[in-house]
């Protein structure tokens, strides 16, 4: 295994970390409209991710930065090619972050309601668009011989990619619902389990369709294994949810995300961004990667930093392990 292969795996790990972690906090954002009945319940939801969402989001920045360093060509083609969708994601992440921090800082009804609306939409839109983006990455896009994306915005919105968007949206919402069931007490916990079942069933249908399509389109033996694991984990997560084993259910929905992302990357390799115009114009781990010297330095950095990050972020979850309900909310506007 050469360094650029290792880096392909590491980039996959960073994206997996991102989707696992921000997946549930996007999901929780969506649930503020789907599950919460009133403002205190919305606040309970928001506060389940309060201490952690910011750290979760850094997985995205790391995935972006590491792609820049390890596969500059990939970074350049991806972000200049998916310009407008990425703009939409950035705007959502900006507004969403500010919304969490500022929502409770004023007591006015309008103020709080507007930020709550922002939290919902700015969680839903990126949750959908990341799936569209990965659908396009795996499927391939119009890349010319200079590695420039030459398609338009319309070329990114084909059925396969849109289905990918539905998968991430529903899967993250399911992931968020089982997380909510794990982190709350009282009535909302019961309803979260009920909603998890419904969303989970929808997820199972769209995810199975999307993964089978991927397997038929670009799959191989290894991706088939990942597909089976993803589907089995999702079914098991649903069962665990029904049995009231919330920890198991959350862990298994996490496994679903891990396996699904793994499947996408396995069916992508050794490409990182295939060209639909000419296979020889595809970006691959070889022609898109940095020099061995840079990759070596980056390997040291990621090899030391990533386990440490997992350790102290894991510790954060342990510190905030207590379930919360409406009775635990501090007074508003402080």
């Amino acid at each position, binding site marked *: 295994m050469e360094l650029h292969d290792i880096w392909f795996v590491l980039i996959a790990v960073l994206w997996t970390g991102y989707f696992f972690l921000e997946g549930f906090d996007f999901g929780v954002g969506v649930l503020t409209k789907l599950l919460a009945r009133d403002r205190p319940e919305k*606040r309970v939801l928001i*506060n389940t991710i*309060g*201490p952690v969402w*910011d*750290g979760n*989001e*850094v997985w995205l920045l*790391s995935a972006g*930065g*590491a792609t*820049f*360093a*390890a596969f*500059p060509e990939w*970074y*350049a083609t*991806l*972000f200049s*090619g998916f*310009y407008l969708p*990425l*703009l939409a994601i*950035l*705007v959502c*992440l*900006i507004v969403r*972050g*500010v919304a969490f*921090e*500022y929502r*409770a*800082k*004023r007591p006015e009804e309008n103020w709080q309601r507007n930020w709550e609306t922002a939290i919902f939409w700015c969680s839903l839109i990126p949750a959908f668009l990341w799936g569209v983006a990965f659908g396009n990455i795996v499927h391939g896009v119009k890349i010319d011989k200079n590695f*420039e*994306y*030459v398609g338009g915005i319309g070329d990114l919105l084909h059925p396969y990619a849109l289905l990918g968007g539905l998968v991430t949206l529903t899967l993250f919402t399911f992931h968020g619902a089982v997380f909510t069931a794990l982190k709350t007490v009282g009535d909302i916990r019961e309803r979260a389990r009920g909603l998890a079942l419904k969303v989970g069933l929808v997820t199972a249908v769209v995810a199975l369709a999307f993964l089978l399509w991927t397997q038929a389109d670009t799959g191989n033996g290894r991706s088939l294994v990942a597909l089976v694991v993803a589907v089995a984990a999702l079914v098991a997560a649903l069962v665990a949810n029904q049995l009231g084993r919330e920890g198991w259910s959350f862990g298994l929905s996490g496994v679903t995300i891990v396996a699904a992302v793994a499947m996408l990357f396995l069916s992508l390799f050794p490409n990182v961004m295939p060209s639909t115009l000419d296979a020889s114009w595809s970006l691959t781990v070889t022609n898109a990667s*940095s*020099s061995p*010297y*840079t990759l070596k*330095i*980056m390997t040291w*950095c990621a090899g030391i*930093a*990533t386990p440490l*990050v997992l350790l*102290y*972020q894991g510790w*954060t979850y*342990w*510190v*905030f*392990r*207590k379930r919360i309900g409406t*009775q*635990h*909310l*501090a007074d508003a506007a*402080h």
Partner: protein
Amino acid sequence: MNLALAPETLARWQFGITTVYHFLFVPLTISLAALTAGLQTAWVRTEKEKYLRATKFWGKLFLINIAMGVVTGIVQEFQFGMNWSDYSRFVGDIFGAPLAFEALIAFFFESTFIGLWIFGWDKLPKRIHLACIWMVSIGTLLSAYFILAANSWMQHPVGYRIDKARGRAELTDFWAVLTQNTALSQAFHTLSASFLTGGAFMVGVAAYHLARKKHVGTMKTSLRLGLITVVIAGMLTAISGDTLGKVMFKQQPMKMASAEALWDGQKPAPFSIFAYGNVEKGHNTVAVEIPGLLSFLADDNFSSYVPGINDVNKAEQQKFGPGDYRPNIPVTFWGFRWMIGFGMASFAIGMAGLWLTRKKFLLPQHLRVGEDEVPHLVLFKNKALGPQLTTWYWRIAVWTLAFPLIANSWGWIFTEMGRQPWAVYGVLQTRQAVSPGVSQGEVLISIAVFTALYAILAVVEVKLLVKYVKAGPPELTEADLNPPTRIGGDLRDADKPMAFSY
């Protein structure tokens, strides 16, 4: 869509807008993290309540500010790929590494421990909670270092070679990138300016309350901390600015000649106080100068030769081929002056404040005040300022909080525009760096979206800051004074509300 603009023009405007905006929050975040951590340390060590009140007060303003810094920083991570894809392809092998280091080491630190600090008041024993804010502070400093090393590489590329076959620059010595004198002096200068910014912010806010005789105890402590920070950081900013200037005279003579509107080389060279010139013809029509000072700034010698804009332009034409290698001279010239002027103005106001509010030194008995009284502003021994001058000093002290922000912005505009036409000095020109596949229409949309969004958020943020500044330090609760003794919080009452929730 074709707007008859050079392809890089809109991308440059976007980078300028988003980056200057982002950097309004960065220096405050860096300095307020450390200052808040300092105040919390004082609370943990002395258990004096005024320190806890100050920690909570400044911590809140810090959080309102860092929220904006974090979210506007996300754009920075991606816009190289979006608008500057050819730049990313050409230098990614080098430039990407410090960015990835920043994310993997510094951002994770900052963002994880800030969550622990915000929500951890009733979940963590007090020393561990204190450690969290120090971790945030370390994260901000590391982050600054990595990104400044990356920028320094654009100012003065080192530790690389050009791979002709792949058409890109490749890293050969990462250590050189991290430790070259451009990176060291730029980090020194930027970090001291950041503390000048945070110090001035503290002085301004404390002066607002002291002028109204409100929250005197906490605000006196804050004023003192702010003034000391301003004076030390101001001094360091001047020293590091001088060091960085000398480095730049060697590495980018064009930038420094433009900063002085020095058209033709002179020996000795004067420092220009005011100049109005004709860029086309390459000379000044009006110039007010201090003889020899520029030679001294460039080389520590009042009679050294300093090359002018026209000389460097000719030299670069010989080296890099035909073209115009001059930056925008008026912007560079005035940017340099506004940076120094506003920065040093807040330093001077801080020096004055530290002298006027001195505690005991040369202060007669009748002008000394108690713990909870607003200090007299004592100019000479036995002579306090009259009521009118006192009002004016407090008023100017409030204004000073804006000065370093203005200075920082102009400093970046100066150093980045002074490097033009280069994106990477001597290696890659800005016009070669833009994304060829992104249309001007797309860039226009994103400029419009970011500008509108940032403008709205600026209004929201400033209003919120004003609200919490005016509200003053909070009353302390029982829970504040009795932090938990075990991690995860004390379990006495399962339904006890959180100390903080969104």
